[in-house]
């Protein structure tokens, strides 16, 4: 039953991704941008312009371009069906390999930010839910409304000013490691893991130190909606019959709160999934403040260079990961909450 559910979800996901690919493909080509002159410059000769257009394949009819991109004419160039996202126009390397270097940075950043946001949000959200209407609840509520509506890039800059310039406890916002440090051999692409594999704990702590500020910035923004959600789901759990019963038989308040928390976590999973998917591209501004070189910065670079294959690749990969995350979290939800069966 579970297997059938997963297969069905995957199948729907593939159809959705296929529609997305088509939509993005035509959308960027219908917009009045000229990637050829962006590449060869405005002063190029008509011959040079035509040659560049031929090289990019932009002289072919639109549907032929789509065919090649999808991989339906593999004799010209490998496409999606052959597992290739194409070649970046700006750099000349394959989009797949570029995304593989940029994506782990973002995944590492947002995963740590989610963990930190959770550590903050669960007690704060519970504090609000256990004292409904009291001063603590009001404070929690206003905080969550505030944190959830903030310009994260500005907070990042503010933190840089305070913690780097004024206090000197944070490193300069210049990337994952200090520019003077030689990065370890990329194995997984995750800096924290790679430094450990290379057996260099000093670099591990340096990377952690450099991640500190961006993770705190993102966790602050994320804590807004997560606290709101924990509080709301907790309140609902506290009103349910089993909590009433637990209170009636005189269980300690702390224990009842723990039971309620478990019941509140299930419904929170869907929201966590959506937030995580959103953050894959939503972390872009924080990445760019701290020059981390994540997938968001790769997207900025590709968009500003009119690099169509790279844009298509980024959108496809981010959406695909979001869909997988939604599915995983629905499965976790089912595992936590035995009432849900597929």
């Amino acid at each position, binding site marked *: 039953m579970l297997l059938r559910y997963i297969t069905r979800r995957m199948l729907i996901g593939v159809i*959705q991704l296929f*529609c*997305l690919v088509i*939509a993005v493909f035509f*959308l*960027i080509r219908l*917009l*009045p*941008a000229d990637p050829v002159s962006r590449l060869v410059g405005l002063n190029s000769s008509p011959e040079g312009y035509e040659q560049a257009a031929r090289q990019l394949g932009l002289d072919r009819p639109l549907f032929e371009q789509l065919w090649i991109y999808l991989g339906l004419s593999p004799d010209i160039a490998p496409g999606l069906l052959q597992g290739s996202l194409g070649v970046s126009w700006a750099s000349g390397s394959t989009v797949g390999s570029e995304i593989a270097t940029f994506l782990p940075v973002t995944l590492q950043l947002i995963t740590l930010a989610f963990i930190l946001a959770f550590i903050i949000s669960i007690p704060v959200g519970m504090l609000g839910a256990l004292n*409904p*209407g009291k001063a603590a*609840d*009001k404070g929690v*509520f*206003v905080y969550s*409304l505030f944190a*959830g*509506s*903030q*310009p994260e*890039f*500005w907070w990042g*800059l*503010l933190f*840089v*000013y305070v913690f*780097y*310039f004024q206090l000197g406890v944070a490193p*300069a*916002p210049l990337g994952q490691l200090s520019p003077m440090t030689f990065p370890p051999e990329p194995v997984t692409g995750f800096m924290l893991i790679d430094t450990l594999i290379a057996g260099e704990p000093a670099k591990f702590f340096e990377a952690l130190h450099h991640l500190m500020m961006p993770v705190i910035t993102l966790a602050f923004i994320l804590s807004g*909606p997560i606290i709101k*959600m924990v*509080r*709301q789901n907790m*309140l*609902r759990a506290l*009103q349910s019959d089993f909590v009433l019963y637990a209170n009636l038989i005189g269980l300690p308040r702390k224990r009842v709160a723990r039971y309620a928390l478990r019941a509140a976590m299930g419904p929170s999973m*869907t929201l966590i999934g*959506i*937030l995580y998917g*959103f953050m*894959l*591209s*939503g972390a*872009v*501004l924080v990445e*760019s403040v701290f020059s981390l070189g994540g997938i*968001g910065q790769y*997207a*900025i670079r590709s*968009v*500003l260079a*009119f690099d169509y294959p790279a*844009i298509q690749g*980024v*959108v496809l990969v*981010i*959406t695909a990961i*979001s*869909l997988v995350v939604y599915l995983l979290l629905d499965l976790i939800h089912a595992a936590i909450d035995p009432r849900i069966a597929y």
Partner: protein
Amino acid sequence: MPDQVQDLLLDETTYVPPVRKADWLMRIGVSIVTLVIFLALFGPYIGPYDPTRTTIRIAVPPPGLTEIPGLLAGWIGGTLEYPPHWMGTDANGYDIFSRVIAAPRTDLKIALLANILSLITGVFFGLVAGYWRNWGTELLIRVSDVLQSFPVFIMAMVLVALAGRSATNIIIALAFVYTPIYLRLTRAEVLGQTSRGFVEAARAMGNSELSIALRHVLPNSLTPALIQSSVTIGFAILLTAGLSFVGAGVRPPTPEWGLMISTGANQIVLGEWWPSVFPGLAISLTVFGFAVLGNALERRYERG
């Protein structure tokens, strides 16, 4: 935050208002929003300097707290050489205060128009998709689902960068990413209305389907979309500023908060905090104001 999250939080059936008597909070929201609207109307004219003209004084820090009374007295008395730079000047010599209060003209205009545009298209398609259920409207919903699965920020960036960095294109791009939200909200509401008695009654009276949809169902289905707008305007301001910050927004020297933060971002590591801090503070308060207002409306009109 993504609007799907907003929806999830809105959709709660067992909603417990967190602050029962939070009129002070709503008052804060209304004051902020009123101030921003005022600045959008008059901001460009009331600043001491032209927001799009540089001065010869570059990177002047704002006056210290102790200097303010003296400056104020001199300003009113007319004994100063030039009007004080209340928030300092940036690396190009622009007066930051004049630009901060002129920016709502850009930011609020973009956010408001994008919101109105997406509200109209979203409500229209939501009404159609909810009231007439056939394969065509089913397709409409599927298309909207695909649009909604786009990564919002990247999509907005693609649309603006490829179509050209103008305010109009930003408005269209934002409207494009926000339309599916209104479509879904309205459709869900319409679906709930069509089985209600007053629709049957209107039909029995001999009204045409079109007139039932427009005159009876539509007015009863607008509330969630209208409440959502206050929240969406705030997020549209965030998105507009974010686009400028990465270089895919309005062009300099347009006074725009995100652009100002981005101009000051390079200097902040050198200790020049004022070019970024003041416009950021303005965004922070404005979006918070709209979020508070949206939340207050949400609580007031929550059914039950």
